[in-house]
């Protein structure tokens, strides 16, 4: 009896959770709303730049269309935790050829990657009018729906890990932008989107686990450092085929560790 009480009190002191007060739910209101403001701004950019991109496509300006493809998409990639909540739009805007049984010929293969295929693989803007209009309509639809969405806090906080999982699964392999090889833009977009979430909740995370935050920051910096090697003078990125094998390998560790660490964020902030 005595022994078990003692064990229990020891357990309580040993348990890392007992040492810190839990995050007060109301402390999350500021960061969650700031995240929505960030997402709203990013979608504003997505809508504006998609208009310019699809204008170029419809005018038959292949060079401009190719140039605008990657910087436009970045604004989708950075807000994927919210954008992909809308399954129908995520499919029509951002599905990859693998998601479609009939591949590039599938009628319902639309959006960025379908346009990417024609621009970069077939090297033409021909036959893209309807797809360009559809993409424009879809991103505006997304803008409206996000405006009306009350962001679920657990999706916002969980979004940091989701973005890193996305990087781990599709960016390091170079399969996301397989025709244009502009994967590094998306890569940076995912990383920036995840970092934004960590930054917005920094104060709350710091109260719970300072060492965790330092480790996360270190790994973000490691990823950024490698990505920075491939930045071009115009603010863009080299194509992914230029990324050296040792750099690809060097990205795996920090990306996987980040994905794993960030997956504990919901629990740390009391949102499980």
């Amino acid at each position, binding site marked *: 009896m005595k022994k078990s009480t003692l*064990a229990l009190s020891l357990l309580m002191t040993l348990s890392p959770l007992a040492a810190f007060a839990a995050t007060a*739910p109301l402390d999350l209101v*500021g960061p969650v709303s700031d995240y929505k403001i960030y997402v709203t701004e990013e979608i504003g950019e997505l809508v504006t730049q998609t208009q310019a991109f699809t204008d170029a496509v419809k005018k038959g300006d292949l060079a401009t269309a190719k140039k605008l493809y990657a910087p436009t998409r970045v604004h989708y990639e950075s807000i994927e935790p919210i954008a*992909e909540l809308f399954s129908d739009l995520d499919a029509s805007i951002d599905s990859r050829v693998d998601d479609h049984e009939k591949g590039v010929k599938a009628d319902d293969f639309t959006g960025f990657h379908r346009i990417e295929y024609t621009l970069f693989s077939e090297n033409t803007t021909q036959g893209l009018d309807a797809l360009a209009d559809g993409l424009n309509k879809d991103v505006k639809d997304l803008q409206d729906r996000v405006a009306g969405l009350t962001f679920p*806090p657990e999706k916002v906080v969980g979004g940091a890990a989701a973005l890193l999982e996305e990087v781990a699964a*599709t960016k390091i392999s170079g399969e996301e932008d397989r025709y244009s090889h502009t994967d590094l833009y998306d890569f940076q977009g995912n990383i920036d989107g995840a970092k934004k979430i960590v930054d917005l909740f920094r104060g709350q995370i710091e109260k719970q686990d300072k060492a965790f935050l330092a480790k996360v920051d270190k790994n973000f910096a490691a990823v950024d450092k490698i990505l920075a090697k491939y930045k071009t003078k115009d603010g863009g990125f080299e194509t992914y085929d230029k990324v050296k094998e040792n750099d690809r390998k060097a990205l795996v560790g920090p990306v996987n560790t980040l994905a794993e660490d960030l997956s504990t964020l919901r629990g740390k902030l009391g949102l499980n």
Partner: protein
Amino acid sequence: MSNPTPQPAPPSRALRWAVAGSVVVMIAAGGLFYYASQLAAAKRQINHNEIAVTIHGHACEPNALTVPAGRASFRIINRSDRAVEWEILDGVLVVEERENIAPGLSQVINANLLPGDYAITCGLLSNPRGTLHVTPTAESDAQAKAKPSMVAFIGPLSEFRVYLSSQGTALVKAVTALQQAIDAGDLAQAQALYVPAREAYQRLAPASQRLAELDNAINARADYFEKREQDPSFSGFHRLEYSLFQQRSLDSLGPIAQRLVTDVTALKQQLLAQSLPPEQLVGIVVRNLNSLADVRAASGEEERYSHIDVNGFAANLQAARKVVDLMRPLLTKSAADLLPGIDSALNAFDAELNGLKVDGHYRRYDSITADQRKQIADKAKALAVALDGIDPALGLSGLK
């Protein structure tokens, strides 16, 4: 001299501590072992309860699932030849998902499910959707009846802060446009732009009125100053209104307009810096509607020079509707019986104000009869009373 039989030396103090220490370590180790084994048991439990779903080339197996409400773990095994996804959908909205499950591998999705019917995205987009039927349990029934926890308010309160941010931006923009018209010496334009600036303010008024001093600088009427309109401290919206509509002059308005731009910019910042507890979210709207019902509707004192009071009432109503919309999911879950009354009060007030429109514009308040003013006051009061029921029904004041 020598002592052949060595006596056991009395245990040294250090040794005694060492023994005590090792006992503590043993107990601690025992505790840790207990803790670890409990943890392992919990993990096994999760594995044990996993629901296996296999994605084949063209469908999932099983494609129709039924689970009890609460936490569920699905192990998704990809037996197709592509990296695919599995999602639980509520309408088009994703509840939980796992993307890029590699061929031949499996991944676990944990979900906390409410009772209801969900669809499943199963591999290729052309594959038939699966179904997920979540049945109520005693626990989910109890949860549905229970009052919401503080965590449930993070979403609505965040969304209200986003509203304050976007409406705050709109207010700064509208007041800046007004100030520029005044600077440009364009009286007609300044009179026209006073209206949208006031509407923008009235959409924020319930929240703004918590900031007493700043709100006074922006919104105080002449009555609050000793020498009324002639008082040198009289500034803000109503000072502009007085000159624009009563004196029909822009003389010396420049600095007053400039200060209003500064004040509404500060207002936006302070509104975002404030922390609003859940009971206040409803409380500020109720107070705003009560002031409308008890004073402003009958007197028409708020916009006494421009007579655009109805525009302000309509903007107050928009703020009330926003708060109701933000609380709607929680009300639907925990106090659904309140909603019909709230919605009909909102709609009745809305209909009353809409009836005062001519060619898409609200009528001047000096043309609104005493009887009509009473109707406006009654409708606002009825809405305030309906909204007052939210606090006790959701237990806002006693939230943990």
